[in-house]
C-alpha cells in the first residue's frame, strides 16, 4: 500500500537526534566554525556506540494483510533520518562524530568477518582523492606493492574527512596503474603506522568543524591481510574490489543527500523564525495571492519536500534489497542542488541579518556547498543517472 508517512518506530530516534542537535550541536556550532581545527571535545557526550545502536535498528516488516511480505523499513531508512536530524543541528559537527565516516561504511560493506573483528570499532576515514585525481577516482596514482607479508603504500591523499582525528584510514591505491580500475584496491591503515603522516589540515569555506586532511604515505608498510576485498587485478577482480567499494557510495549518497535536506531545513526554519509575522504560509490561498517572499518560501518548501522524498525512496529501496544506484544518485543530485539553493536564498530573504554572523544562516549557506560536491558532485550524479537512463557506457557518455 502506498504510504509516504514514516512509521512510529523512527519517532524516538528522530526525536533523540533532534535533541542532540538542539542541546549539543547548536550551542557549539559557531564556536567550531571559528576555531577551525580544534577538536570538538563536547561531542564526547554523544555515545558513539549508543548513537550507532539507535541508528541501526533491526528491520521492521510490514504485517498488514495487503502489504507485500517483504516491505521493510530498516537500517537505511533510520540512517538517513538520523543524519537529517543531526545535520539540522550542524553538518560539520555531525561529520566529526567518531565512527560516522565513509571509512567505516567501506569497512562495514566489504570487510571479512575477521577484518570486522579487527576494525569494526575503529574511527575510520576514507582517503581517495589525490591532487591530480578527483571525480575520476579510477585514475589514482598512490601505489601498493606486496613485499613479503606486507603491503607497501606510497602516495599523497587529500581531502580526507576526519583524517586528522580518526584512528584509522581506509586508503585507495593501485597495484598496477596500467591495469586501470581493476588494480585499485583499498587498504586499512591504523594511525601510528610508520610512513603515514598527516601533513596538512585545510582551511575551508564551510563545515569548518570537520577536519579535512592531507596524508602522505612514504614506504608505509601494513600487514598483507589489511586489504579490503581480493588482491586479484583481473577484470573479474575489478568487479570484486573497485565495483564493491564504489557501491559503498550507493549506500552513502542518500546519506549525503539527507545531510543536505537537514541543513536546508535548518535554514528554512530559521528564516521563518526571523521573518516572523511578516509572512504567513497559508496553503488554502492561491499562490498568486501570496506576497513574493511567501511565494519563494512555497517554492523552496516544494523543492525541499521533493528532495526529501527522493532520499526516503532511495533508502526504502536499499532496505528492501532493490538495486538503487540510479535512485541514490537522483536523491543526491536533487538534494544537493536544492539544499544549496535554499540556504543561499534564505540568506538573501533575510537581508543583512541573514548575511550576518549573528545568526547561523550564513553558515548554513557556506556548509551546504560541499554537499553538492563530496561523494560525487552534482555533475557526477547527473552522469550516473544519464548513463543509466540512456543505456550508455562510460566510453560513450564521457
Amino acid at each position, binding site marked *: 500500500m502506498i504510504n509516504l508517512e514514516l512509521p512510529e518506530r523512527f519517532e524516538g530516534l528522530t526525536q533523540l537526534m533532534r535533541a542532540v542537535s538542539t542541546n549539543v550541536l547548536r550551542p557549539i556550532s559557531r564556536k567550531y566554525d571559528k576555531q577551525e581545527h580544534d577538536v570538538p571535545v563536547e561531542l564526547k557526550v554523544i555515545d558513539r556506540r549508543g548513537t550507532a545502536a539507535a541508528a541501526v535498528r533491526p528491520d521492521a516488516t510490514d504485517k498488514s494483510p495487503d502489504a507485500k511480505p517483504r516491505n521493510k523499513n530498516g537500517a537505511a531508512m533510520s540512517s538517513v533520518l538520523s543524519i537529517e536530524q543531526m545535520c539540522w543541528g550542524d553538518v560539520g559537527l555531525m561529520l566529526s562524530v567518531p565512527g560516522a565516516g565513509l571509512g567505516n561504511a567501506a569497512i562495514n560493506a566489504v570487510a571479512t568477518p575477521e577484518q570486522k573483528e579487527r576494525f569494526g570499532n575503529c574511527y575510520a576515514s576514507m582517503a581517495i582523492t589525490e591532487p591530480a585525481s578527483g571525480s575520476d577516482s579510477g585514475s589514482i596514482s598512490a601505489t601498493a606493492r606486496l613485499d613479503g607479508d606486507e603491503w607497501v603504500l606510497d602516495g599523497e591523499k587529500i581531502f580526507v574527512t576526519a583524517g586528522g582525528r580518526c584512528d584509522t584510514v581506509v586508503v585507495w591505491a593501485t597495484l598496477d596503474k596500467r591495469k586501470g580500475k581493476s588494480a585499485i584496491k583499498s587498504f586499512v591503515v591504523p594511525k601510528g603506522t610508520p610512513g603515514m603522516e598527516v601533513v596538512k589540515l585545510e582551511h575551508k569555506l564551510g563545515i569548518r568543524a570537520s577536519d579535512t586532511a592531507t596524508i602522505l604515505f612514504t614506504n608505509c608498510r601494513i600487514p598483507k591481510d589489511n586489504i579490503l576485498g581480493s588482491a586479484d587485478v583481473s577484470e573479474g577482480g575489478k568487479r570484486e574490489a573497485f565495483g564493491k567499494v564504489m557501491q559503498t557510495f550507493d549506500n552513502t549518497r542518500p546519506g549525503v543527500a539527507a545531510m543536505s535536506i537537514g541543513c536546508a531545513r535548518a535554514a528554512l526554519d530559521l528564516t521563518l523564525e526571523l521573518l516572523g509575522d511578516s509572512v504567513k504560509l497559508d*496553503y488554502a490561498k492561491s499562490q498568486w495571492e501570496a506576497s513574493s517572499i511567501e511565494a519563494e518560501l512555497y517554492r523552496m518548501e*516544494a523543492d525541499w519536500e521533493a528532495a526529501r522524498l527522493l532520499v526516503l525512496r532511495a533508502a526504502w529501496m536499499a532496505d528492501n534489497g532493490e538495486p538503487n544506484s540510479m535512485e541514490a544518485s537522483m536523491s543526491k543530485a536533487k538534494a544537493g542542488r536544492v539544499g544549496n539553493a535554499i540556504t543561499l536564498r534564505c540568506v538573501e530573504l533575510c537581508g543583512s541579518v541573514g548575511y550576518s554572523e549573528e545568526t547561523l544562516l550564513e553558515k548554513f549557506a557556506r556548509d551546504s556547498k560541499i554537499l553538492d560536491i563530496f561523494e560525487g558532485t552534482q555533475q557526477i550524479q547527473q552522469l550516473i543517472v544519464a548513463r543509466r537512463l*540512456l543505456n550508455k557506457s562510460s566510453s560513450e557518455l564521457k
Partner: protein
Amino acid sequence: MTEPSKPLFDLTLTDEQRLMRDSVRKFAQTEMRPVARKYDEAAETPVDFYTKSLDLGFNAVQLPEELGGFGAARSPISNMLLTEDFAYGDMSLAIGALSSLSFINTVLDQGSPAQQAALLEPLTRDGFHPAALALTEPGARFNPKQLKTRATRSGSDYVLHGEKTLVPFGSTAERLLVVAELEGEGPAAFVVSPKDKGVSSARESFMGLRPLALSRVTLDGVNVPKAHKLGEDKPFDLDRLLDLCKIGNAALATGVGQAVLDYVRVYCNDRIAFGEPITNRQSVAFMIADIAIELDGLRLLTYRAASRAEQNLPFRREAYLAQLQAADKGMKIGTDGVQLLGGHGFIREHSVELWYRNLRAIAILQGCISV
C-alpha cells in the same frame, strides 16, 4: 485494544492497483497515443473513445453497490494512479475520460446519501454519460476564493447567474457541478444540466487541450431545485475539492512528463549529429537526467499527497506543494522536451509540441480532475 500503529513507508501498489495500472497503461499505448494527434487537429473526440475507455471499469469501482458499483472505499491513491496513467496516453483524453469520475468523487465526498443515489444513478447506466466540474471563471487573475458566479435563494430553490470557462462537455454533459458564491453563505455547488433553461454554452479554443472541446457556460437566471444543491443544508467544502484537484493536476503532469521522458530517451539516442548520438554529449544527456530527477520528485510529492488524503490525514500542504512542482517542473519538462528535438520538436509530426501546449494548462486548471 491498542491503536493500530502507523503503516510503514511503502511504495508498493496493491494488487488491484497493479492490475488497473497494467490495463490503463496498455490502453494509453494502444487506444490513446495513436489518436491523440488526430483528435487534437479535429478539436473533437468521438464519443466512441470514451465509451471504450469505460470498459476499464474505473467509474464503477468506488460507486456504492446499490448503484451498481463495486462499493470499494474511496481511494484517492487509485484515482491518482489512474490519472497519471491515462495522462501518459494523452492529457486531454485523460481529462475527458476522468471528468465523470471527478463528478462522482465530489458527489460521494460531499453529497447527502439521497443525493448520491439521485445524482449518480444516470451515470451508472450503460454507455458514456459525460459529467464535469465547472469552477473556473473567465478573465485574468481568477481566484476561486472570490467567485463571481452568484447563487441567490428563491423560495426553497436557488437561482444562478454567472459564467464558467474551461468546462469539459459544456454542451453535452448530463450533469455539471457549478460552483458559485451563495450570497451571504459562502461557496456552494449546484448540479445543473446544459439543457436547463438559462444555460447556454459556447465552444472555446485554447492553446492546448483541444480534443476536449472545452466550453464557456453562461448561467442566466438558472433555477436549481434545493435537492440539486450539493450537501443540501451542509456547507460545501470548496477547499477539499480544490486540494483534491491539485493532486489530479499533479498526476496529469506526472503522466505527461513520463511521456516526454520516454520519447526523448529514444529520439535523442537515435539522433546523430557530429558523427555520434547526441546523447553522447553531456549537455543533452544531463537535460534528460534532470527531466527524470524532477519527474520522480514530482511523482513522489503527488503520491504523498494522495496517500495522506486516502488515510484522512491533513493533505492541504502536500497537495499545494505537488501542484506547485507540477506547474513549475511540468512546464520545464515540456519545454525541454521540445528543445531536445531541436527544430523537429517544433514540427507537429512529433508529440512533444502537443505535450508542451497541454503542460502549460497544469498551472491554470483548477477544479478539473478530483481524485
